């Protein structure tokens, strides 16, 4: 992605900061009134022209949310969030574009600046993009070429209109609305996100990706993503996220649901680079996300790969429900925290079916005064004969004011189950740094090299196009952490 490097150098000069995506775009916006109540839920549904069943689902979720309490078991601290002080819907005023040619040029320019050209000719070879700006999807590329093989890739709002039977069948089927506080909130007010459907036997011919951008002030982003791979289908999907630099915190509470039927494979990669706040811990995104995949079919496979460098707070546990016999779940994670960032992230592998297996490789890197927690559950249920799990959690500490914590939960209810857990904690050693520097590498390049080496097992799981970006991102996130 050479375009990223160039454009973002410019942005960095403008913002004078190491967070390269911190600019704000001046677009005429339409907001729902500030605050959260039933009328807002109805308004969002109405804006999107939704059918009655979906409005009913939203209202039920909202009612459930009102009775729930924010979870407090994670190792994160933040002042109370005033849910009535946010905007729950913000969209560009120009009417929704019918094709790429109709997209607001200012928006196209902004995505160019982020290194995500939406012009199909200029875009990355073999990657289709859905661009979500605050509450709405503004463009989806390569839809036509995808539809030729039967792949549906569009915004979820559009899917509700065009493919209501699919949405109705699968929405909330993996993550029930009332699963937790944030899923209930999301189910009530979700505005947009991506929808992917890969029909039976089709291997999706391109990488699919969604680029989430929070732009408007005091606005929460509640996206909803649903990916379905039918029997024998396969798809690789990647999401990226950025937001402007602001002193106040912003809320992002997303829900992602994946469904894999017999022999289907879904690879879901995330490069999360929401604004992390400044060096003093002011501002940044609160990232409270529920991601879950259901391996419903025999020999299906769901693989999560995440590189989490952004957000003031990350609360996120991409999980797999391994129901189909012989199904496979994978979780590869790199979580970097610097300055005052807090991350409590990990996974859940729920083994229901026989001969299911899961692999968890989690790498946590803490610098500054940050706290980085791995929290993972491996549960082998009574019917899961010969289930296997392998977990490896490695923590790397940079400096002496940060923290790394590992909280594994292991429950094995079948005597044939086999669960392995390995964990290490290390520091970047002075002799490693000196070794690199004596060979000509600067201190920051040395840290970058050592950190990338530490994360290699995870980075190699990313699609090629993004692995290089992710490596650079790691180095940037840790700038100034040594010395």
């Amino acid at each position, binding site marked *: 992605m050479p375009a990223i490097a160039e454009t973002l150098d410019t942005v960095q000069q403008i913002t004078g900061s190491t967070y390269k995506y911190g600019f704000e775009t001046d677009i005429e916006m339409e907001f729902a009134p500030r605050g959260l109540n039933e009328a807002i839920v109805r308004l969002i549904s109405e804006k999107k022209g939704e059918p009655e069943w979906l409005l009913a689902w939203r209202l039920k979720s909202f009612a459930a949310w009102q009775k729930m309490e924010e979870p407090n078991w994670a190792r994160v601290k933040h002042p109370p969030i005033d849910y009535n002080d946010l905007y729950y819907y913000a969209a560009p005023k120009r009417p929704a574009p019918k094709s790429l040619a109709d997209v607001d040029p200012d928006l196209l320019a902004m995505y160019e600046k982020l290194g995500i050209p939406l012009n199909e000719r200029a875009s990355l070879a073999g990657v289709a993009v859905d661009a979500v700006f605050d509450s709405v999807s503004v463009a989806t590329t390569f839809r036509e070429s995808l539809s030729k093989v039967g792949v549906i890739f569009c915004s979820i709002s559009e899917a509700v209109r065009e493919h209501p039977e699919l949405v109705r069948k699968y929405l909330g089927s993996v993550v029930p609305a009332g699963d937790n506080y944030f899923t209930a909130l999301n189910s009530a007010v979700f505005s947009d996100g991506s929808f992917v459907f890969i029909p039976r036997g089709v291997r999706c011919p391109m990488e699919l990706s969604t680029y989430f951008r929070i732009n408007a002030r005091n606005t929460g982003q509640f996206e909803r993503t649903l990916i379905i791979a039918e029997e024998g289908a396969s798809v690789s999907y990647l999401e990226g996220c950025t937001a402007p630099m602001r002193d106040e915190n912003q809320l992002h509470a997303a829900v992602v649901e994946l469904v894999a039927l017999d022999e289907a494979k879904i690879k879901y990669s995330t490069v999360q680079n929401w604004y992390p706040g400044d060096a003093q811990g002011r501002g940044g995104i609160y990232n409270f996300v529920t991601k879950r995949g259901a391996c419903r079919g025999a020999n299906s496979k769901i693989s999560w790969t995440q590189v989490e460098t952004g957000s003031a707070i990350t609360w996120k546990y991409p999980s797999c429900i391994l129901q189909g016999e012989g199904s496979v779940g994978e979780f590869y994670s790199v979580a970097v925290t610097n300055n005052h960032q807090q991350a409590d992230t990990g996974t859940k592998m729920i083994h229901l079916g026989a001969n299911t297996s899961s692999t968890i490789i989690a790498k946590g890197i803490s610098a500054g005064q940050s706290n980085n927690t791995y929290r993972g559950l491996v549960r082998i249920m009574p019917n899961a004969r010969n289930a296997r799990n392998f977990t490896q959690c490695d923590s790397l500490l940079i400096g002496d004011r940060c923290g790394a914590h590992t909280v594994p939960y292991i429950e094995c209810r079948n005597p044939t189950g086999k669960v392995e857990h390995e964990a290490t904690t290390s520091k970047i050693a002075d002799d490693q740094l000196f070794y690199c*520097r*004596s*060979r*000509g590498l*600067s201190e920051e*390049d040395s840290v970058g*090299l050592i950190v990338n080496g530490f994360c290699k097992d995870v980075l190699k799981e990313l699609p090629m196009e993004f692995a290089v970006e992710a490596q650079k991102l790691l180095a940037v996130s840790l700038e100034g952490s040594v010395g």
Partner: protein
Amino acid sequence: MLEIKNLSARIDDKEILRGIDLVVPQGEIHAIMGPNGAGKSTLSYVLSGRDGYEVTGGTATLNGVDLLAMAPEERAAAGVFLAFQYPVELPGVGNANFIRTALNAILRARGEPELDAVAFLKRARAEIKRLAMPEDMLKRNVNVGFSGGEKKRNEVLQMALLRPRIAILDETDSGLDIDALKIVADGVNALRGPDFSALVITHYQRLLDHIVPDYVHVLANGRIVRSGGPELAHELEAHGYAGLEAA
């Protein structure tokens, strides 16, 4: 030319180097021998810029450029290379990637064009062949799971590819069997030429049978107490270091 004048240095409050004078002209190989605790490793660390060593007096220049004022990476760009006594492991960092990144950092600092992966690999494979090392050295992670001998060979490979003006070999012979010792020595001898000089630090004379130095210096108690030709090494081997500290 490496020129060290009256160099003193300490760790914490302990004086280790007490006024070293040493000149290594371009193209020459000098050996430094001496008993344990004489300050041999300290000298190599002070010259390459390791943290924790405080220079309390004197100067060290390479071709007239003040080394002591520079960060370790700047010294590398100026042409200093330290072959470590205990090479460090870098898990997950591929050897080829490591050496190429280092070489390009040095080239960049000198304002010279960098090498792309293909050009680098070509050069690296040629060196590996010349040094009679297995090609998988490049694919493995830096020093991870290497035997003691392989680690030292990897230092020589890095040296051959980074092409320093002065290489400091800090007890590179320690822990090597005779075959590995020959490979290391051949590597150094192959670089001999008008643009390369080396400071070979060793406890034993046997390495100097293979890398024949132009001069031998004896370091004892933080000072150079004797200098002479290659025959001095044999003398030391026969009579030991006893009595030198008073000289």
